[in-house]
């Protein structure tokens, strides 16, 4: 979606003044033009990565704080596109989930096409109490299942969070792992098990 269309959505659908000023549009357009000139495809990282979708466009355009009406509109659209697992079968194998949570590999230009994409969880979150090398960009998920239980609503909510964090918080820092195709259904099920299984080190 082009910048103009996103601004048009804001103006027409919502009748908003569309602050901040149009100067920001020009700055965003200039930055995109420079990027399109200055980047080159390498390995799995193609130039199509510079094509912004609606969420990226709006978050860029409003410095991650879009008008609330626009936010709700796009969040609803993202939520509607979440694919839940076949047969409500949310939980896979926590051991495989642990390996995925540990791996920060994949999708960079130095990763070959055959490198399996990891879940990157430990880059930003605390999980098992035994793993001290955790990042702090995201909230702690220590004892996640133990603390929060395993109600169907919570399973569904957590699935949607991993699948597409932007469905509940439009300009969240967290990647949209399912939506972008970085992780498949089976992998998300394993990571879910790592969070919820009573035997998982996250809950012990």
């Amino acid at each position: 979606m082009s910048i103009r269309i996103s601004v048009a959505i804001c103006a027409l659908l919502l009748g908003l003044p569309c602050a901040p000023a149009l100067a920001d549009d020009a700055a965003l357009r200039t930055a995109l033009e420079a990027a399109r000139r200055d980047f080159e495809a390498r390995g799995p990282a193609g130039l199509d990565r510079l094509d912004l979708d609606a969420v990226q466009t709006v978050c860029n355009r409003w410095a991650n704080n879009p008008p609330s009406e626009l936010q709700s509109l796009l969040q609803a659209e993202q939520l509607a596109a979440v694919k839940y697992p076949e047969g409500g079968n949310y939980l896979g194998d926590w051991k495989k989930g642990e390996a995925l949570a540990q791996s920060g590999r994949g999708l960079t230009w130095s990763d070959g096409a055959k490198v399996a994409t990891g879940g990157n969880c430990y880059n930003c979150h605390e999980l098992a109490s035994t793993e001290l090398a955790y990042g702090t960009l995201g909230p702690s998920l220590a004892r996640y299942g133990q603390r929060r239980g395993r109600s169907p609503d919570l399973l569904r909510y957590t699935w949607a969070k991993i699948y597409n964090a932007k469905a509940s918080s439009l300009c969240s820092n967290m990647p949209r792992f399912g939506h972008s195709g970085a992780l498949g259904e089976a992998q998300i099920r394993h990571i879910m098990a790592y969070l919820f299984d009573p035997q998982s080190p996250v809950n012990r």
Partner: protein
Amino acid sequence: MKPSSRKTGRRAQKLLRAGAAVAAALAVAGAGAGQPTAAETQAEIERYRAMLAEDNPAELYAARGEELWNTPRGPKQAALAGCDLGLGPGVVAGAYAQTPRWFADAGRVMDIEARLAWCMETLQGFSAADIAARPFGSEDHKSDMEALVAYVVTASRGYPIAPSQKLPQERAAYALGKSLFALRAGPYDFSCQTCHSQDGKRIRLQELPNLTRREDVRRAYTGWPAYRVSQGEFRTMQWRINDCFRQQRFPQPKYLSETVNALITYLAVEATGATYNGPAMKR
């Protein structure tokens, strides 16, 4: 800096032995199930620092860079004595601290690396393609550019960071850098800001400077370019930005491109007034 070559030779042996040992230790620890703990990594680096007393392997790169600077090279067999880094032909002391800046002869805003490349092209006759072919060196393929940058930035130690913002082109480079810093894209929707706009955060155990805060920019900028212990190589600012784009899951920025230059300009301007005390030793 003019250490006698014998002294440099002895020190080189010592530094490289120590560096290889630490790089190996970090690599082994990193390959294990977990990563090395912060304390382990820090202890390893402290041990390395102690081993070197106040020596930083960047000095070796700087010494080689000085030699390269003074040696007639390239198709035109010219030395870089005629290279104008902004303070006049051949003036190296303090020049880096005033980059990036507009260079009228080239008609663009250049960081120190772009300027060195321009001199290599125009004075020595190297082709742009050759210069861009392998700018970031490795153990078995050392980079001349990294050595030249080490030499030039070392000669700005103690100088205040003072990139010019007088000309509209220089201000445009800053503004572009600022916008690019916030540009989210790619499979993970990352921008520089995703990792660098909060205080006191880390990825795994690596501390993240908040580059939207002047104090943090100053600390980061005045240490780069730097010797990277984990890689056993001297790395430039072009490399730093390039590798962050890699982690951002972006495609690769072209070497010396306007995009990378603009980001360096943004950081340099934010660091204005701080005293350059690099090249530092980094993880």
